[in-house]
């Protein structure tokens, strides 16, 4: 169910085997199209880990093409109907470009930085962040337990879960909610 995409390899395969930098829009668009083809071929629901660890530079234009447009398509379900995406292998400078893109699209994505820490990148209100943290800590949790975990009214937790599902930051499994990291 979990699929791993090494963006550095996709770049070399689709654009030029001499390049290690993700710069320029045409390069980003070519890489994104390749990733979309992979996503479309996966059984649903799918979780795809997009790995930037072999990428040198990531500029804003390329981050927009590779991360922004891809996740926008995933959220709006125009590429595939039931896909989830995690990003990993991200350095500080990658993070800056990805953050700027997420702000522009009003999107959020879960990112693992080089030190192994998970971050939610992009605009997300405090309530959703608390609930997401709790789901991540527990791995899999039902709403009644989640209410106790975050010490918030059920209606608030429910609203946050709806927001997180819409942003494809948690998965639903029967009555429970599942963190993307636990599926990896």
């Amino acid at each position, binding site marked *: 169910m979990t699929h791993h995409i090494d963006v550095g390899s996709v770049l070399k395969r689709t654009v030029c085997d001499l*390049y290690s930098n993700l710069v320029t829009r045409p390069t980003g668009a070519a890489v994104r199209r390749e990733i979309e083809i992979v996503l479309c071929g996966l059984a649903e629901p799918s979780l795809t880990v997009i790995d930037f660890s072999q990428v040198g530079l990531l500029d804003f234009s390329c981050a927009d093409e590779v991360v*922004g447009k891809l996740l*926008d398509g995933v959220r709006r379900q125009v590429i595939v109907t039931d896909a989830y995406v995690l990003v990993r292998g991200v350095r500080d400078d990658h993070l800056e470009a990805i953050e700027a893109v997420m702000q522009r699209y009003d999107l959020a994505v879960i990112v693992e930085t080089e030190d192994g820490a998970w971050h939610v990148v992009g605009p997300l209100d405090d309530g959703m962040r608390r609930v997401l943290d709790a789901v991540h800590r527990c791995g899999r949790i039902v709403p009644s337990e989640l209410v106790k975990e975050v010490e918030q009214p059920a209606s608030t937790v429910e609203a946050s879960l709806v927001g997180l599902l819409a942003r494809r930051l948690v998965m639903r499994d029967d009555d429970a909610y599942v963190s993307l990291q636990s599926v990896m």
Partner: protein
Amino acid sequence: MTTVITVPPSLDDETFEQIFEQVAAVSVDQKVLVDARHTRWSSPYGLTALLAVGQSRAEQAAFAGPEAEDTASYWARAGFYRHASEVFELHGKVPRTREAPAESNVLLEITEVARSDDVHTVVERIQSRAQAILVHELHLDPQATMRFAMTLSEVCQNIVEHAGQGGWVAVQTYQYRQRLGRRAVVIAVCDAGLGFRRSLESTPGWKPRDRWDDAAALEDALVRGVSRYRDPGRGQGLAGVRRFVGKWDGKLSIRSGTARITIVPEWDDAVPLKEGLSHFPGAQVQITIPERVQPG
């Protein structure tokens, strides 16, 4: 009749206005001779903007280079004559470009940017030298190296996406005595293409506002992140450049048409928005990042 355009002895973004003024007064289909015989020094902006002057003329301009051998030799090693031979009819003595090692202060010799592949080339070339110079000589944080390359990539892409024709980029460090009293790394990117106003006017369904001119177009692009493309992700490149320049106490200036917008650091006294300049097509960008003063 050929009109002589006199190049000042010292050529930077400010003194270059004298050239723009002279060039604007001559119709593009009239012959000009750009006379740099008495020029002794030029910033990367001066060299790349000179090429843009050549590019802007319908009737190919003539060019007479510096008579001082050290100046001419330096311009040759910076790559100027290689590109000048394509946009100018070269007069006088043209120094031979030997396979000599690049100047230690030249991070990127003058490079043509016309296609996306050129941006890849620029970024690959700069990365190998940027780390050594930015970190060890200008004492910038190691994190600045990648951001510097990102900035370079974005300003070069501006040419590919908006100029409608090629331009040139150069990166050098030099002692910025006049205003700063310390070293600085300077990126210059110049073209004589569409310019910001015409690029934004090409947005589908675009309508002029009450106040619409080169200055308004520059403000839209740099301050408000407006792009001619409708995608929500557009317009981030220059915003990223602004953040980088702000973080490292740098200066960013963009001249286009008849206006120049500048992000002014404390160490400089430039006017944030200058209007009513002599018209010159395209965009001329300069980014200056100063050496970091080490505590103690």
